[in-house]
């Protein structure tokens, strides 16, 4: 038997299962019964991406099965193997979709995720492009021992790799108490082998969302995933034909498969360089897989007794697991970066002033301050806040440490497990030192950290040093307007994913992902002059109203490799800036009220446009201009430049309640300043007020919302 025969037999098996399931479902529910996955704008995403056809009911699903039969040709070329692999994935998608009939939640209570929503994919966009998630591991099957399974999962987790699990390996991880969940980047998908489809669906939607791959362009899809989605498969245990057929689908998308099934590999010639690799030793799966997919892990060796990886960034330390807490809302706390003269800084000096964690009672609250003092020839005070903002991420990456807030409103929790592993105050200093030096080596020559737990001293320093420093910075930020600076910056960090998208970052318009402010871009440019952020001059104005410049257009054309000719900075209707797909929010026009609504990524409900966030989002992205829709960062909402060309923020008529609360203070301040309106957000609708345009219009009329009296947008 050849490898090809095995794939064909596996594909036939899965096809048979899908056929049986679909026929049974039609018999039970009738052909008109609706079929869909929750939280996606792409129907059955894999089938839609491959064929361009949207399946909405069981009858169409049956037709789709016929299409799959047609692509599963059985000649002896690799293309046949690829198509049988793809066909297997599609059949798996059909089988999984049937589980969701009637709005069922088939994975509830199983500890597994099943289908992953579009919102999750959009969240993954930024960390994937920045390399914070350097890869995606798909582990399926059963490891020789539970210990090996747990060790393998943890090895990826420690590297920040997103791990998805299918089959018995999930139980093995449960047995070994592996910390699982989306927040620690280990996602059990499901026990059935068909549930592997849910991660395939993520890769496929990434191509649609970020890559602007046209649905139906199967070749373009495969090219995108091969070149841009750093996923790989670890198949543990005996390979049966179904697993091999799934593997063929993975390889078709460009994802190598590593197996420990030596026996089958001897019986059938299955070894294929960089694609199908036999590694008998599960301990070496990690290294083998990373090499096969050319994934490089940024190594930051930090001398601390617990793990440090981006996978732990979302980890939550609950009260009962907490050893000690520092809470800026109750006691004095702060974090601060200060630039100093070279002579004032002794590199890698870490100083603790006050008692260490040992002396604190379990579960108690205390004051803390950590001051990172940096010096360097190219250091600028503007960078202080850039580094400081990263502390949140740095401290969260420590296993067993949770950090929220910023400046003097921080909260840090240390888990009992981390404490027991030996984590102490100086380790916070080690992490901050190592990361600042590592990430900003071009501007930081020396760095020292002071950690202060002496409550009295913290209080004194907070008022004498920290608050004045923050005030000074705020004044500087206020003075930073689009008009007051000479240059803007491009950001093409996302081009790994969205090859023709370019953000133009200005002081009043941060990148749409919310992660790159003008200062960030400036620092990035300083750190890496040929990197993703390049200086864009703004000398030749074409149209002040919409914010269009000849120099900006030239830059955009260059950085988008000719895909984009011109953009405006301040208009949503005329030449709007494009989106990669990673945007925090999407704003779209609401014709009845003459305004715009904004939905954020976290919002799962309906908007008055009759579309959910995923559906709205699917209309833009991929670096294409879509007048009337615009992706943007949350911070941009309160900017004076927010769709200035169309009248500015007074066009905002609706936002989800959570988002509204987040931006209220700044948005109200801007409304007051621009139009003299008090409490503007009270006039803005949300989902508790209206989810349809008529109700919204009534509400807006009642409140006298200013948008109603503005010029029509269209």
């Amino acid at each position, binding site marked *: 038997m*050849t*490898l*090809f025969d095995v794939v064909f037999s596996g594909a036939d098996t899965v096809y048979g299962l899908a056929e049986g399931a679909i026929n049974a479902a039609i018999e039970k529910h009738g052909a008109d019964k609706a079929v869909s996955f929750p939280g996606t704008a792409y129907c059955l995403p894999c089938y839609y991406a491959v064929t361009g056809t949207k399946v909405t009911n069981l009858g169409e699903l049956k037709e789709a099965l016929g299409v799959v039969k047609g692509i599963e040709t059985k000649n*002896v*070329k*690799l*293309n046949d*193997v*690829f198509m049988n692999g793809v066909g297997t994935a599609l059949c798996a998608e059909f089988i999984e979709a049937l589980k969701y009939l009637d709005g069922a939640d088939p994975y509830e209570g199983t500890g597994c995720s099943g289908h992953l929503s579009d919102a999750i994919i959009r969240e993954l966009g930024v960390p994937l492009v920045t390399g914070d998630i350097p890869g995606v591991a798909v582990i399926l099957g059963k490891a020789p021992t539970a210990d090996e399974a747990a060790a393998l999962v943890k090895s990826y987790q420690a590297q920040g790799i997103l791990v998805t699990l299918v089959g018995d390996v999930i139980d093995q991880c449960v047995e070994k108490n592996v910390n699982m969940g989306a927040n620690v980047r280990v996602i059990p998908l499901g026990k059935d082998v068909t549930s592997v489809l849910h991660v395939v669906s993520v890769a496929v939607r990434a191509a649609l969302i970020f890559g602007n791959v046209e649905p139906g362009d199967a070749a373009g899809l495969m090219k995108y995933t*091969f070149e841009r989605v750093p996923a790989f498969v670890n198949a543990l245990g005996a390979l049966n034909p179904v697993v091999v057929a799934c593997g063929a689908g993975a390889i*078709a998308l460009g994802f190598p498969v590593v197996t420990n099934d030596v026996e089958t590999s001897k019986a059938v*010639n*299955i*070894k*294929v*360089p*960089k*694609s*199908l*690799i*036999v*590694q008998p030793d599960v301990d*070496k799966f990690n*290294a*083998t897989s990373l*090499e*096969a997919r050319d994934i490089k892990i940024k190594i930051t060796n930090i001398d601390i007794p617990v793990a440090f990886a981006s996978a732990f960034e979302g980890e939550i330390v609950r009260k009962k697991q907490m050893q000690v807490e520092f809470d800026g809302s109750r006691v004095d706390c702060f974090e601060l970066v200060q630039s100093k003269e070279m002579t004032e800084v002794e590199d890698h000096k870490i100083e603790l002033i006050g008692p260490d964690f040992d002396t604190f009672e379990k579960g108690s609250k205390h004051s803390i301050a950590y001051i990172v003092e940096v010096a360097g020839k190219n250091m600028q005070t503007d960078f202080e806040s850039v580094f400081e903002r990263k502390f949140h991420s740095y401290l969260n990456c420590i296993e067993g440490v949770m950090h929220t807030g910023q400046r003097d409103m921080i909260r840090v929790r240390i888990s009992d497990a981390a404490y027991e592993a030996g984590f102490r105050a100086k380790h916070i200093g080690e992490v901050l030192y190592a990361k600042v030096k590592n990430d900003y080596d071009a501007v930081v020559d020396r760095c020292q950290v002071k950690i202060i737990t002496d409550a009295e001293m913290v209080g004194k320093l907070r008022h004498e040093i920290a608050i004045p420093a923050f005030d000074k910075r705020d004044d500087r930020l206020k003075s930073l307007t689009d008009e007051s600076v000479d240059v803007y910056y491009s950001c093409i960090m996302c081009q790994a994913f969205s090859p023709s998208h370019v953000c133009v970052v200005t002081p009043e318009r941060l990148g749409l992902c919310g992660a790159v402010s003008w200062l960030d871009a400036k620092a990035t440019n300083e750190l890496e002059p040929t990197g993703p952020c390049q200086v864009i001059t703004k000398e030749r104005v074409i149209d002040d109203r919409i914010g269009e410049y000849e120099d900006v257009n030239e830059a955009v054309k260059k950085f988008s490799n000719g895909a984009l000719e011109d953009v405006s900075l301040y208009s949503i209707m005329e030449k709007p800036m494009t989106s990669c797909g990673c945007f925090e929010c999407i704003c779209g026009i609401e014709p009845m009220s003459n305004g715009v609504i904004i939905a954020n990524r976290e919002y799962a409900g309906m908007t008055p446009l009759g579309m959910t966030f995923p559906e709205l989002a699917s209309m833009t992205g991929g670096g294409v201009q879509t007048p009337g829709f615009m992706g943007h960062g949350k911070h941009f909402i309160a900017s004076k430049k927010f769709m200035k060309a169309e009248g500015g923020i007074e066009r905002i008529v609706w936002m989800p309640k959570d988002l509204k609360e987040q931006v209220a203070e700044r948005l109200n301040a801007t409304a007051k300043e621009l139009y003299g309106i008090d409490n503007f957000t009270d006039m803005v609708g949300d989902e508790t007020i209206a989810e349809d345009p008529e109700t919204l219009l009534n509400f807006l009329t009642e409140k006298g919302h200013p948008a109603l009296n503005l010029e029509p947008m269209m």
Partner: protein
Amino acid sequence: MGDFKLTTVEEFEAATARLLETGAKVGADAWQIRVKNQTPHCKFGEQGVCCRICAMGPCRITPKAPRGICGCDVHGIVGRNYLKFTAGGAATHSDHGREICHTLYLSAADGNYKVKDEAKLMKLAKEFGVETEGRDLYDVAHEVAEVGLMEYGKPFGFQKFLDRMPASQKDLLVENELAPRAIDREVASSMHMAHMGCSSLPEALVKQSIRCGLGDGWGGSMMGTEFSDVLFGTPKPIDTEANLGVMNADNVNIVVHGHDPSLSEMICEYADDPEMIAYAKEMGAKGITVSGVCCTSNEVAMRRGIPMAGNFLQQENVILTGACEAIVVDVQCIFPALGPLSKCFHTKFITTSPIARMPMSDYIRFSSANAGENAKQIVKTAIENFKNRKPELVHIPDMKQKATVGYSLEAIVKVLDGVTNSQVDVTGTTKPLLECVTSGVLRGAVAMVGCNNPKIRPDLAHIELMKKLIANDIIIVASGCSAQAAAKAGLMDKRAKDLCGAGLKRVCELADIPPVLHMGSCVDISRMMNLVAELAKDSGLKISQLPVVGCAPEWMSEKAVSIGNYVVGTGIDTFLGVDPYVSGSAEVAELLTGGVREWTGAAYTVEKDIDKLVDAMIDRIEEKRAAIGI
């Protein structure tokens, strides 16, 4: 795929037609005209049934006259002709190899020729049993050269390089008395056997043809390749361009043509010399462009990225551009027509070798000892000729493609190392390629070689065969004029991966290679022999079991027959698109297409229909796969 598109044979022909218009204006002759004059060809000659090896004849065999005056039958006559044809080719390749040995022998630290690839020299020294420890590099080089030269006339033993073969093939050859002895001896023995009154037994004549060919492939040619690498560097992947569009109307154009890199390397060296470039500017040009034709072009393309102006049947086109200041030739495949043609233009036709003397040429005798001076004189001559150009005759077709060339065996192994996984694999082997083949991702490999021949629409067979093969997940290694046809069409552009089946495409992407790998000039077919030998050794299979075949669809020279014989002798089935003058004898034809398999593990297939030829190759590859259960 972006803006990538293959250049079609129709486009080649349109460009040629435009150049022939210029030719007609100046009264130039052309091969297209001469083919017409020579058609129809002599039927006796075509069938190989004409014998003129003694003065009693010529005799030609017909149903009414089935034997010559001496009584030799048609099989003996066809067999002898075939053997002499082979001997001509083997002598030619091998003498080229010998010339390179002499050049290596003259290499010196401060000489015109130096050792560029020391590691390869050391490897050869070890293979030849030459002491290296504590010795001067050039002492070693000279002794290696001498041992190599002795291979031509040594009284005893087989060719040393035969030890590179897997034992299974070498043993088969020894057993069947096909293992080549001294190179010159095999040529001389062939001539002896084909003398009046010697062999007329088809079996003996075919066997000697194979042995003589093997003396070329595993002797003279292999030495030519290996020693060229020592002197000029082992080729590594390098980007270049191909087709007439590489010539530059603003520059002095020097075209090198022939086979021996000793001359062309030196020309390239001096064309790059700032002094020469300045001189060219002084003479009104913007610079100097060296491009190549035929295998000398392959040699300098592989090592220096020098662009390829064209292959065998494009040699006259180079002059017809009206922009060629000098066409500098060494040996083999040079049309005597270039002399009269050059007189229709300002072009200098410069012959350099006592082996290839031609009327109406400027003879600047090139010698290894004075290579630098000779080359400088040639470059200067070309520069000074720039002013004589007739602008109204200048037309360079705007036609070229990008190509990545330079896939020596060493380079291929390095590429393969790049797709290994250090956690599970060893490096320095051909195993990754074998894994691709055994798993079915690649179905097999075809070695495409050989010339152009007006009997086949030029380049069409090469290009069409390659297109169909790569679409069927069959990887191609190419050399000689076949490689240049591929490069001109665009098949050596990495973007040609999009023309491949899914399997070969993925291999191209992962290994970052084009689907057609340029392995060099025609002597470099020895590289292909080394490659299959390694594949056999790494897989534990016999060479004849590998799903690999050879193909020369447009061959024309004696060298090509010698090559065919050693490829078959190595155990690789060989497919020809032109009959080697053996159709007159059913017995000889049967031996070549069948009987020889018993002695070597392989045989010839002759098929003039290109579509059938490619299908026959694909079928053979699939048969071989089935036979070993993959």
